[in-house]
């Protein structure tokens, strides 16, 4: 099975190193980052690629673009792991459309195209006899899409509740555990590399809302978008509020909630019992699915990280291979 990887950031490097260290029968024939690209039909040497990227900041020749790789590299599956543009979904959306139109499968961690055009991309894939998988867009290593599609097949999902943003969860955990103010905990999250220089996207609940939209549209076939979600972040949560919750054996977490029967689609800080299954520590993510047959199922795991996100992408690659054959 041959793959091309677009994006050589944390996730792209994680995928490449896992593919080189595990004998999964997957060959990388094309790679591109925002400034360069490389195509080798006989297979790219991943060790050399990562070393070049480390020393020069480039993964290949400056004259080769991501679209050159999409159109020109001999691959079965395109791995689209460029950074998310939540507003337009581009340029990833064009990369994905092009690959699907060419009859190739796509695996992505990029939330932009999925939140904007999930159903259109699925229809396009179906019309070409290919598939698009996006396990890595939501809750990192947690196999939520596989669980929904396979493990809970035949169940009706009635509602879902999730901790979908590790940065917020880390900040709230540290405020509660150490008595830090919101500002102090945010500063610490930045130092630990859990928060961006501009944390707005995370702390205002937007990232969690995007993931909620992806989950809701996947489960219920809806076409919800970000503006349909009622969003409150954690940036106004005080240490006093956490202590008031603690006085009663509770704590506060940012919870994404979808409950179609009550027309609820929202992200907001909530009071939970300290022993509630969604009260996870640090950057851990968790999702509870309420179903008609299985009852409540809660999955918990790492929501971010290079190798953890690669785990979700590799899972998608191997799922495509087992469904569509070896793709040789």
């Amino acid at each position, binding site marked *: 099975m041959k793959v091309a990887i677009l994006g050589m950031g944390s996730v792209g490097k994680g995928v490449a190193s896992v593919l080189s260290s595990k004998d999964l029968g997957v060959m990388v024939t094309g790679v591109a980052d925002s400034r360069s690209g490389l195509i080798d039909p006989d297979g790219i040497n991943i060790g050399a690629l990562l070393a070049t990227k480390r020393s020069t900041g480039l993964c290949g020749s400056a004259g080769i673009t991501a679209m050159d790789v999409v159109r020109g590299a001999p691959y079965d599956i395109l791995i689209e792991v460029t950074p998310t543009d939540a507003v337009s979904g581009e340029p990833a959306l064009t990369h994905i459309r092009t690959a699907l139109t060419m009859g190739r499968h796509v695996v992505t961690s990029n939330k932009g195209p999925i939140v904007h055009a999930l159903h259109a991309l699925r229809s396009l894939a179906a019309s070409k006899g290919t598939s698009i998988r996006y396990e890595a867009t939501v809750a990192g290593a947690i196999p939520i899409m596989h669980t929904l599609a396979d493990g809970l097949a035949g169940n009706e999902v009635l509602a879902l509740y999730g901790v979908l943003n590790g940065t917020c969860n880390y900040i709230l955990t540290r405020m509660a555990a150490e008595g830090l103010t919101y500002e102090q905990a945010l500063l610490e999250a930045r130092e630990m590399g859990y928060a961006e220089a501009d944390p707005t996207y995370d702390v205002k609940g937007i990232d969690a809302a995007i993931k909620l939209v992806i989950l809701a549209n996947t489960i219920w076939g809806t076409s919800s978008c970000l503006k349909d979600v009622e969003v409150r972040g954690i940036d*106004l*949560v005080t240490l006093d509020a956490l202590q008031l*919750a603690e006085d*009663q054996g509770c704590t506060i977490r940012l919870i994404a909630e979808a409950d179609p029967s009550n027309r609820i689609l929202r992200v907001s800080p909530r*009071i*939970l019992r300290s022993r509630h299954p969604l009260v996870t520590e640090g950057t851990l993510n968790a999702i509870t699915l309420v179903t008609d047959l299985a009852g409540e199922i809660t999955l918990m795991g790492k929501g971010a990280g290079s190798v953890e996100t690669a785990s979700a992408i590799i899972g998608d690659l191997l799922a495509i291979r087992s469904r569509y054959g070896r793709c040789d």
Partner: protein
Amino acid sequence: MKLEMRDAPGQLVAALKPISDLGGNIIAVIHQRDPGSRSEVLGVQIVLDLPQDRLSDLTDLIRSQGVNILRVNEERLLCTRAVIMIGHLIHTDLGGTVDAIDRTGFAEVTGLTIRMPAIDQRSSARFTIRSVNREHMEDAIAILRTVAREKGLLMIEPMGVSQ
């Protein structure tokens, strides 16, 4: 309520039937039999939800079945939840916020704990709300949600009210 009845077949049913006849909802029946006791009298505790105005009818009906009522503890507001509000609570008419719940008739603010770090900083308050039942709790929280939006307060709701 705590009942005393003869330890004979049909007695418990005789005591419970009037509850459903009057549209009440039995929440729990605690049936304690002391294994060492040879007494022919049995103590039973029943927790139930019943419209206020039907309580005396119920006690009459149960007594007419020959069951002795030892004690009736009335608790009008059975459902309790805590909500946290953050913002300029005092300067946005805290009394009015509390009153929005109290005047419903089906829910009350029964506890209020406020932390005010400094005069120009946002305060945080925990409102303990009690209501007649879960549906009314949802209504009470929806009212507070509207008040919070109007007053620019952040409201942190408990999980598990609606689900």
